[in-house]
Each structure stands twice: as structure tokens, then as C-alpha cells.
């Protein structure tokens, strides 16, 4: 029936050699970590990402703990001490055009600015991510419908759309948050959909279908883990965009309103003093710059740390 017995090559199960170097490590030590643990270790070894994470944590920590840091009241004005230069005694980073302590306002401002950066992205991630996952996995007409609908929103430049939505809803932090969330849903849907479509076409998803598993189980076990990475990286970039848009909305009067401390708003009100105290006027912009750059660099670090094949 089968080929002659003489052709058979002796089969030795034990003859398989593991990857070089693997033998020397005791089994207990090399028990591999889960995927996310591996990513964590790789992230921690990346100096830029670690530095950025440290800076962000410092800013966020200070913002969260602001009321307990013994800072001067960020809303207390002092007409006699307007626009004190950076380094004045009692006001480390000077004061603004109404004599409010800059350091206190920058730290307190982080609370709102960081919220405005993270919250819309998180909500948009939940909504857009689900839409994209469903559209990408089901494909066909469903995909067409979802993607063409998001294309309608996608056609407008993001800032313009945010301004239009916030403008029609009226000024205020809540409306600004809503506007930015709506702006971010289409791009997140699009990215999730394209990654899902790619992953779905891979052999291991085919193999999972061949094992008779249901769609939900396949999505949970095989699709989600492979889609989450790239989408998460993209979302990190959006956080910095979100901070910039919300600062922009506050700047044109559609976001936070005075006397709330918020970086975009501070930039706006200090704008008129830029020739009198340029350094003070630039400080909120500097905070926006540092924060969004940190998010961007962390996103880069995540991207390379998550590529386990490197």
C-alpha cells in the first residue's frame, strides 16, 4: 500500500533540537511570558519611551494631586502682581495677566487638558473600535454601509468638524468633549476596519473557522489580540491631537471658559501679553507641546515593542 518500508527514515521524536541557546536556560526561567508581559519588558528597556512615560506620569500625577500640593489658588487674582517674570519669589513661573500664579494654573490646567486628551479618544475607541471590528469581520455589504457612513464624517477636516459641532452645540467643556469624540470615531473605525480585514484573511483565522468555532469566539481569541495593537498605537497618537484640538477649541472660546485653568484657554488669554512677558505667554504652549510629544513618542515605542517578530 504505502511506499516501501526501506524508504522510511527513522523517526526520532527526541532528535528535534530546540532553538539554539534555549537548552541552557532552566525551564522555570524561560517559561515565556504572555504577549503583553513581553511588550511591557521591551517597553521598559526603551529609554525614550521610559523617559516620556516618566514625564507624562509626573504631569498627570501633579494634575491629579493638584489640590493637595499646597499650591496657591489658581483663580486668585492679584492686580498688583500682574505678569511677574518667571523666577519671581513666591511665583516660580511668574504670574499671568490677572496676577494668578502660573505654576498653579499650569498644574491645575493639566487636569482638564489631559482629560480632554484622553477621554474623547477612549470613548471614540470603544465606539469606533467596535464598528470597525464588526465591519471588518463581517465584510461585504455591512462593511460597505459602515465605511461609507464614516466616510461622510471623514470628508471634513477634523478641526473644522470639531469647531462646527462644538459651535452648534454651544460653548462648554462637555460639548467640546462630545465634538472631539465624534471627530475621532471615523478615523478609529477606519483603522480598526482595515486591520481587521487584514487579520481576517490570514490562515489562522481560516483554521479557526475550520475548527467549527463561532464568530464571537474567533473574534475574541484570534482577531481582537491582533487588531488591538495597531489600533492602540494609533489611539495614542490621537491623544495628542485631541489635546491640540481641545486647546484650539478653548482658544477660540468653544471649550473651557474663564476663569477655568486650561492650557488652550491660558494660551488664548496670555496672547495679548506676548510682547510684555513672552516667556509667560509661551508656557502653556510648552506644556501642550511636551505632553503631545510624549504621547507621540510613547506611541512610537509601543509600535516597535509590540512587533514581537523584531
Amino acid at each position, binding site marked *: *500500500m504505502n*511506499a516501501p518500508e526501506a524508504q522510511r527514515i527513522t523517526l526520532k521524536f527526541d532528535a528535534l533540537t530546540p532553538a539554539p541557546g534555549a537548552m541552557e536556560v532552566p*525551564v522555570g526561567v524561560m517559561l515565556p511570558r504572555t504577549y503583553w508581559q513581553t511588550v511591557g519588558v521591551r517597553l521598559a528597556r526603551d529609554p525614550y519611551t521610559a523617559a516620556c512615560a516618566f514625564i507624562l506620569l509626573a504631569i498627570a500625577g501633579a494634575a491629579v494631586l493638584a489640590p493637595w500640593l499646597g499650591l496657591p489658588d489658581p483663580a486668585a487674582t492679584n492686580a498688583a502682581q500682574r505678569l511677574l517674570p518667571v523666577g519671581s519669589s513666591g511665583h516660580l513661573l511668574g504670574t499671568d495677566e490677572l496676577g494668578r500664579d502660573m505654576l498653579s494654573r499650569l498644574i491645575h490646567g493639566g487636569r482638564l487638558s489631559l482629560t480632554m486628551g484622553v477621554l474623547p479618544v477612549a470613548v471614540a475607541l470603544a465606539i469606533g473600535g467596535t464598528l470597525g471590528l464588526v465591519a471588518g469581520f463581517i465584510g461585504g455589504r455591512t462593511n460597505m454601509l459602515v465605511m461609507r457612513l464614516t466616510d461622510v464624517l471623514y470628508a471634513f477636516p477634523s478641526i473644522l468638524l470639531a469647531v462646527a459641532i462644538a459651535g452648534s452645540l454651544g460653548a462648554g467643556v462637555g460639548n467640546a468633549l462630545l465634538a472631539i469624540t465624534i471627530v475621532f470615531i471615523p478615523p478609529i473605525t477606519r483603522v480598526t476596519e482595515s486591520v481587521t480585514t487584514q487579520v481576517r484573511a490570514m490562515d489562522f483565522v481560516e483554521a*479557526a473557522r475550520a475548527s*467549527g*468555532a463561532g464568530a464571537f*469566539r474567533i473574534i475574541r481569541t484570534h482577531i481582537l489580540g*491582533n487588531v488591538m495593537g495597531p489600533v492602540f498605537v494609533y489611539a495614542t497618537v490621537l491623544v495628542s491631537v485631541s489635546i491640540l484640538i481641545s486647546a484650539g477649541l478653548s482658544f477660540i472660546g468653544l471649550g473651557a471658559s474663564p476663569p477655568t485653568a486650561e492650557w488652550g484657554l491660558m494660551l488664548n488669554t496670555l496672547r495679548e501679553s506676548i510682547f510684555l512677558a513672552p516667556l509667560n505667554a509661551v508656557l502653556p504652549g510648552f506644556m501642550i507641546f511636551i505632553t503631545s510629544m510624549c504621547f507621540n513618542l510613547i506611541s512610537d515605542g509601543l509600535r516597535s515593542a509590540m512587533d514581537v517578530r523584531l
Partner: protein
Amino acid sequence: MNTREISTGHPAPLLSVRGLRKYFPVKSERFFAPRLMVQAVDDVSFSIEAGETLGIVGESGCGKSTTARLLMRLIAPDAGEVDFAGRPVLTEDGLSLRDLRRNMQMVFQDSYASLNPRLAVQDSIAFGPRAHGVPGPKATAKARELLSLVGLDPDQFGRRYPHELSGGQRQRVNVARALALDPRLVILDEAVSALDKSIEAQVLNLLMDLKARLQLTYLFISHDLNVVQYISDHVLVMYLGKAVEVGSVEDIYHRPRHPYTQALLASRPTMDPEVKLERSPLTGDPPNPINPPPGCRFRTRCAFAEDVCGRVEPALTSCGATGHAVACHMHIPDSSHSRRQ
């Protein structure tokens, strides 16, 4: 290990396929252009007895893989009936898709792409049983058992990720994954083609060993004639979506009837360096499957083509030994071919 009995006496074939057909629509360039179809698999019939290995050979694009995916119902056939163990598949009172997939599993060619890069291999293997309701720890235990069955130490390899394994090791994992549901039929779609020759031999031997131990039946798809000869009991030769010849390994390799089979076999390099191929036994590419030539599809490259070959499509006709059938006018008794035998 596995006590599944193979019915003897009057065996219905384990898998019986009749008139399997799949045409893929091609995107037309103009909007109102007539819809073009690639005739990927056209009216293919065959059967596999329990415990044997059927090899399918043919050039790239002849429909081998499409046949495999049709059988697994990863794509839906346009026509054709499939019986598994005597029961019709996906009919009213027949075998459900879930049952079919528990009994029939597949190993893919690309060992890397067919494993989830984010999942430890033992979790990949355990996925199938878990989807069929086996509780997690039990499924993992089963996965580790299967790993040792395919020659990988579960302690050493179970928690590794696909990129931490070599090609041969990954393909062993894929074999283990295919076996996780205790299937009766395993489709091996170019399962060893991407491996080094030495590893290929190891995996082939493993496959034959597993077949004997677990009483498996194989559908072995490959373009490698030597490998198919080594592993198969019966062989099906495909050309442009059609079955052109089917028979036992002996018949196909020693008494090939179809000019295409003869040309394929002649194109094999020999182990003897003194024997040199004087000229290529087969020239040109297969014609476009979108517009296959009428009549015999092979006639455009066939040295014996005559008028009748262009007019009438030769049916698969049994000839000589039992089970040996060929679709060629030269072997159809009442055809008007001058070389009719």
C-alpha cells in the same frame, strides 16, 4: 490510542464527492461587461476509502487548494454533493457543518500564517476543543498530549509563540492542531511543501506514523510528485479544474494513460545524473482558466490533439485496472480519435 473502528466488509467510502464545482467571478473592467468566471473546480468527483491516502497532484492553479477549501466548506461550492461516512453533508437530515468540521480537519501550507502569532502554541491547539465545549484545563491537557504525539516536548514548546519555533516545529504544531478534534479525515494542503527536504521527510514520516496510530484518512494535496508517490494509495491528477486521471499509485506512476500525467511524470528530475532530459515534456503555460478551451482542456498543449478533442469534452472513463479512470479520447472506446486504444 484511538479506538475508532473502520467498518470492514462493505465499506461506504469515508468521503465521496460528486460533481464538485466552483466558479469564481472575475472583476470585469467595464461596468456592463459580461460577467467572467474562473472555472476553478469544474465537475470533480472522487472518493476516499477509510484508512487510505488520496493524493491530488497538478500544476499551480489547477484547483487543488480550492477543492480542499470546498470540502472544508471554507468556501461554498456552486454545485456538487459530498457524503461523509455515508451521510450527506449539509442536507436536511445530513451532517451539520459543525459535525463535518469535527470529523474533517485541514493543515495549511504556510506554517507561520496558519498560527496566531499572539497565542502560545498550546493555546492554538486547545482552541478547537474549547470551541466544542471542552473546559479550558482539559483542552490544554489535550493540547499538551498532542504536542508530545507530534514529537514536541510540551514543557519546552507548549508556551512558546509561533515565531519562536522553526518551520518544521510549527508544521508539527499545525498537525497537532488539526488532530485536536479527533478527526477521521485530515486534508493536508501542501502541508510539507514549504519545508526543507530533510524536515519534509521527518514530517512525512510523522504523518504516516500518526495515520497508522490514529486510523486516519488523508487527502494529500501537493505539486510534488515524489512526495505524493511516497505517501498516497490513490492519486487524482488535476488539470485546470478538471480531474484528468485517477487511479492507484501503481497505475498512475507506472501505467499513466493521460498524456498530461505522462508529461508530468516525465518532467521529474531523476536521481541518476547520467540520464538527462532531452527536451521539456511539457511546454507553455496552462491556458487561462477564465476561458478554458472547449473540448479537452489539455489539448492546447497535447501532442496527440485531434479534431475530436476540440469538439467533445472527454469524460472520466474507467480503463484497465479497477479504479483507474482517465479523461482522454485516446482511452474512450467509442471516440473517433485515431490513436484510440
